[in-house]
């Protein structure tokens, strides 16, 4: 019997998710023994046509990493969906929108203005920007359309499973591959990671005070961080309380706070709002002015609380650039 086909594709991502697959090290040999990798542009020479030729659902499992920000990525996500029996959103960007999703604080115009006109290192006298279609010297050229809004994979196509993390921890990838090969996948729509908060599995759990009250929020580079005590108790913003575990506390083991890449636990609808709630309630003050000045130490609330999840948040993107009439921009 022929081996099941598996495909990988990347959209708006950094390549770290592909690295994570390589991080399987020698275990990848067992994967190659068990499956037939039939599409993986970053590593193997397959083309889009090869996928188009497949029958619907012919690829047993499709892994897509990266957020969706251009029309081409949307087309490829749709193609992967058609050809894959099981489609897995691989990594924070396709799961929640990820770091590229923070671009939802802007839109195409403000991004293009910055990148092609106003950035200090740019010289662009002709005011050239990417155009969807150009006709030059008898050639028709097309570029993908750059959207105003970055989306997560499930906002564009139906997704069967989510493998979270930036990049997904090797342990979770192995578990997922094993579940696929053994035919023991959980209920459709599941996130393939434990549904408990990181704090519960943290090696520093015992040093977390019962009642956390903070006078100061420090950024990691402002402080000499103690390597045994709860990071929150030291005033370092750590997202462990609202973030899913499954990473074996890799960042905390390296003495850095959790930034929330595995996303929310199952009961949380909006990761950033919930994380904000947990952190803000720890301010050790009852006076509005004092609370404000202490919370002002959090330099970038959206970038801190929605670092990996802005597109999949309830608000989805910044409002003003989309407002119709009466808006300021």
């Amino acid at each position: 019997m022929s081996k099941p086909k598996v495909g990988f594709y990347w959209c708006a991502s950094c390549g770290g998710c592909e690295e994570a697959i390589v991080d399987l090290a020698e275990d990848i040999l067992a994967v190659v023994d068990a499956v037939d990798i039939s599409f993986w542009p970053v590593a193997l020479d397959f083309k889009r046509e090869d996928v188009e030729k497949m029958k619907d659902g012919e690829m047993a499992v499709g892994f897509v990493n990266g957020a969706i920000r251009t029309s081409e990525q949307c087309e490829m996500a749709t193609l992967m969906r058609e050809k894959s029996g099981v489609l897995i959103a691989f990594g924070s960007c396709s799961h929640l929108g990820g770091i590229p999703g923070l671009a939802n604080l802007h839109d195409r115009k403000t991004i293009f203005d910055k990148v092609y006109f106003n950035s200090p290192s740019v010289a662009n006298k002709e005011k050239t920007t990417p155009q969807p279609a150009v006709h030059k010297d008898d050639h028709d050229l097309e570029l993908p359309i750059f959207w105003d809004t970055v989306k997560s994979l499930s906002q564009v196509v139906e997704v069967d499973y989510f493998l979270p993390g930036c990049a997904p921890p090797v342990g979770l990838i192995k578990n997922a591959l094993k579940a696929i090969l053994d035919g023991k996948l959980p209920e459709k729509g599941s996130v393939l990671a434990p549904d408990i908060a990181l704090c519960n599995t943290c090696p520093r759990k015992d040093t977390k005070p019962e009642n956390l009250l903070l006078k100061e929020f420090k950024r990691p580079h402002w402080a000499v961080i103690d390597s045994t005590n709860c990071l929150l108790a030291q005033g370092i913003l750590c997202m462990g309380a609202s973030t899913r575990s499954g990473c074996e506390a890799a960042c905390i083991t390296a003495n850095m706070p959790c930034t929330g890449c595995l996303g929310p636990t199952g009961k949380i609808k909006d990761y950033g709002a919930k994380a904000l709630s947990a952190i803000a309630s720890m301010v050790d003050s009852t006076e509005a002015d004092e609370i404000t000045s202490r919370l002002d130490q959090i330099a970038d609330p959206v970038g801190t609380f929605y670092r990996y999840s802005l597109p999949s948040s309830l608000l989805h993107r910044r409002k003003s650039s989309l407002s119709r009439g009466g808006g300021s921009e």
Partner: protein
Amino acid sequence: MSENKSQARPFEPRVVAFFCNWCTYTAADLAGTSRIIYSPNARIVRLMCSGRLDPQFVCASFRMGADGVLIGGCHPGDCHYQEGNYKALRRYILLRRLLEEMGIEKERIRLEWISASEGEKVKKVMDEMIASLRKLGPLNLNDDMVAELEKSSKNAIEDLQAEFQGGVR
């Protein structure tokens, strides 16, 4: 879509008000039994304590079409649960900053301490808030979001609607 609606009817701000059971909700009750007339634009949701107000509720309200969110709790020192209102205050201060960064004007979210005896204050706060929302105009987050998702996927809209019907947990 919204233009047509607004042509048919003048803009009436929609407000979701989260009032605590022990003070502000009782004050709203008092305003009612005292026959105080105030703007009828708010849908009041009773919480046991303003400290129960999860910032997710505020985001969900805006996303589902609210133009403003009003939070009412007991005066400092008067919380039935000792310090729930302080927690509400801390969350409110940071949430307001975050929402402003997301393009939602500060005037669209307001926290007020209203004790059980302050029926008049319910009227004052509600009327003030509705007046300032009238000046700001509609937020239209819901319509904008549907339009934005429509650009790439028709299914997304059905999903969104199904999600709304399922409610926000």
